[in-house]
């Protein structure tokens, strides 16, 4: 149960600032997802924790032990940090068992490799070579290899990005289950919001080398600290509104505001409404705004409708509607909003 602590971490490559003043604490035994677009510095953060790169400034500690303070650093082979790279990076010249047992003493290799392959669901594949495995199997081997050294911390660098969608979800679930069962502290780097929301205990949103927000998936979605963080997680409708204390009026009519200890707002604000907070009516409804269906993304159990409001600025909004609701492109509908909504002064 080792806590990872990053304190005002800075890292540049030449003139390019990759991480500036990043602070992050990952509680022992929990899974934190670092969410960010490519180039946001998330892989660099992992490589710093693993010890492949060294800090410019700041500190990194695991389980209270200082690993890098900007001048001195512990070498990667002495950190006991398991690393699962993007495409597995299995050693192509070694069998599956050879890969899993790589970090172990000679006597332990066979037994331990078999045990770990059982854990990741790959019994009997000990003698295969990496190129004889599917992408998902390669990732499972990479995880088993990282877990073999009994690491205090496991780092996963977009481990599922090269897999197709259904496999990604299944493997993600399995990996999270395995890590939770062993109470291993893990950092999962990803650019996939749904992956982060589904697997992590905590999400850190990284943008341009800074941590924008950090919270549990639920709070981050329901109660993001600012508009940037709101846009980073899930679909978001951001609307201009006129606030009067506990209520505000926007293009969709009157909405209750969530105060959440931030104090009452008065004046022009920006309003966050998640798609499921919008309700669609097929007939004229009082208090609802008239809109036209621009586009429909059908998911089976529900659907996302992109709507253009007819009044006043022809803004577009996204609404989540039940799957069985019959909608067509160009159809006229009425939208109302249910609170409470987050708001920030403009």
């Amino acid at each position, binding site marked *: 149960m080792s806590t990872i602590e990053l304190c005002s971490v800075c890292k540049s490559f030449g003139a390019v600032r990759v991480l500036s003043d990043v602070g992050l604490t990952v509680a022992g035994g929990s899974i934190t997802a670092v969410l960010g677009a490519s180039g946001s510095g998330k892989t660099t953060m992992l490589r710093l924790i693993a010890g*492949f790169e060294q800090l410019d400034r700041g500190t990194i500690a695991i389980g209270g032990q200082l*690993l890098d303070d900007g001048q001195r650093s512990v070498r990667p*082979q002495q950190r*006991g940090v398991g690393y699962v790279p993007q495409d597995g*990076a299995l*050693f192509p010249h070694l069998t599956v068992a050879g890969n899993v047992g790589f*970090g172990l003493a000679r006597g332990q290799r066979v037994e331990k490799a078999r045990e770990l392959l059982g854990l990741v669901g790959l019994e009997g594949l000990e003698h295969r070579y990496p*190129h004889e495995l599917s992408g998902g199997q390669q990732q499972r081997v990479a995880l088993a290899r*990282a877990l073999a*050294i009994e690491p205090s911390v496991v780092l996963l660098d977009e481990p599922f990005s090269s897999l197709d969608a259904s496999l990604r979800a299944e493997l993600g679930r399995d990996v999270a289950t395995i890590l939770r069962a062993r109470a291993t502290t893990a950092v999962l780097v990803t650019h996939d919001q749904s992956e982060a929301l589904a697997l992590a205990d905590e999400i850190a949103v990284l943008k341009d080398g800074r941590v924008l927000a950090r919270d549990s998936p639920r709070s981050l979605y329901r109660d993001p600290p600012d508009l940037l963080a709101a846009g980073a997680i899930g679909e978001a409708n951001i609307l201009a509104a006129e606030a009067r204390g506990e209520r505000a009026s926007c293009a969709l009519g009157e909405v209750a505001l969530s105060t959440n200890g931030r104090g009452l707002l008065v004046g022009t604000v920006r309003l966050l409404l998640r798609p499921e907070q919008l309700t669609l009516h097929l007939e004229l409804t009082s208090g609802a705004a008239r809109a036209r269906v621009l586009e429909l993304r059908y998911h089976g159990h529900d659907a996302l409708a992109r709507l253009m409001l007819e009044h006043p600025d022809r803004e577009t909004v996204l609404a989540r509607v039940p799957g069985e609701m019959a909608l067509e492109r160009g159809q006229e509908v009425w939208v109302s909003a249910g609170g409470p909504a987050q708001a920030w002064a403009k």
Partner: protein
Amino acid sequence: MAKLSTADVAVAPPRALRRRRAGRSCAVAVLGVCIAAFLLSPLALLAIDAHSAGWREIHHVLLRSRSYLLLRHTIVLTLLVAALAAVLGVATAWCTERTRLPARRVWTVLLVLPIAIPDDVVGYAWHSTFPGMSGLAAATLVMTLGTYPLVYLPVAAALRRSDPAMQDTAHSLGVGRMRTFARVTLPLIRTAVMGGCVLVALTTISEYGTFEIVRYQTFTTEVFTEFQFNSRAAAALSVPLVCLALLVLAVDGIVPSRAATRLAPSRAAVRARLGRLVAPTVGALSALVGLAIGFPLAIVLYWMVQSQHTTLPAAATLGQATWNSLIYSVLGASAAVVLALPVALVSFRRVTHPRRMLQNSTYIPLALPGVVIALSLVFFATRYAYGLYQTSFLLIVAYAIMHFPLALVCIRASVAQAPARLADVGQSLGRGSTSVFVRVTLPLLAPGLLAGFCLVFLFAVTELTATLLLAPIGVQTLATQFWAYQSEVAYGAAAPYALLIIVLAALPAAVLALWFDRGRFQPQLAPQ
């Protein structure tokens, strides 16, 4: 159970904060600089040698009409051979890679084997059969037959790497077969063709034995002849020779390589059905292989059978010469590989402009003909280190310098296959960097090291010029002994030596052909 838990505890490594060292990567770069300096030392020695000869000597040697004749001879021959080798190389590569050629695997080896036959042996075969054959035509024929594999190998590899989807796309856009070849395929393999042609040109420029046999004078033959009378004139003559070769090498740098070589083909190319063309294609390839391998081999065997009536060399001298050739070539190839490994690793972790420049500068020995390297080493030994003069050490150094770039090409190809990420993962699993190098990096580089060794061995065992100049007095190799006998028109006595060279060179040549052909099966890891 108790045992297991103590073992688990033992795994927990000691964690110690260490002062950062100037990284390993830096040490490799420093080593690389030293090796580059060593490799470029013949250029400096040549400059000193020529300078000490004095401007008067240089003027005297260079500004005579004979120099223009030599220059014209060299350039005309080089252009002819390069053009013909390009045509042969591309055509044969197309046949083995893009058509359903019967017994394809056999052809991939047979088409490469001509590099195992020394060009002077081919020249000897033609000249001893048709004594009238001489001059430009003979030189062109012999050199083309001996060097086209240098185009075939890279072009075949490039064809294999290029994504067949590009050709399919061109067809789907309504472009016909011939125009697709000209507009899509040819640009894709252009870099490979250029690279091969540069190698062919450099080989032709530095060839000595063949041209001596077919009586065609080039700069290299002149330098060699001058050296026996006046070493200063030889040094002066070497200057334009090296300039010419450097010019050729520069051509390779000028051609931009935009080819998407990093793209791993999504699937194998659909091979064209040859249909009625099977017989003509197989016939043409057989004729080529027959001329390049069959004919010289047959003539060598013919002379051996003939000479049973007269005199065959004693088995003892034959054995001694074979041993000498073998040991010098093995040592030279090992030295080249050992030197090339750190240079190839210079851009393993960090790719910067200076590091690339450093690597590329080590290709310059390609442009130094064997005769020039040998001259500079003789100059060095007689001037600064007399103890080394007439030792086999100097010959091995010459082999290593001359063939270093060939070893580097092979090793760099496998460094590209062994990304630094794998070494990172090895370290994070608790292994020290030495252990990771031995258990991860080295095994991944092994095929490249083997290929590099084979390539250098092959060129060293067939090498004549530097061997003639540097082999210690009284020490004979297969190449020098063959040369001595055939110079005395003792064709029968020369034949067994030629045959042994071919036998020694054939195995590594076959290994190389298979290594190149296997290229497609190597795992392609996405670039980081």
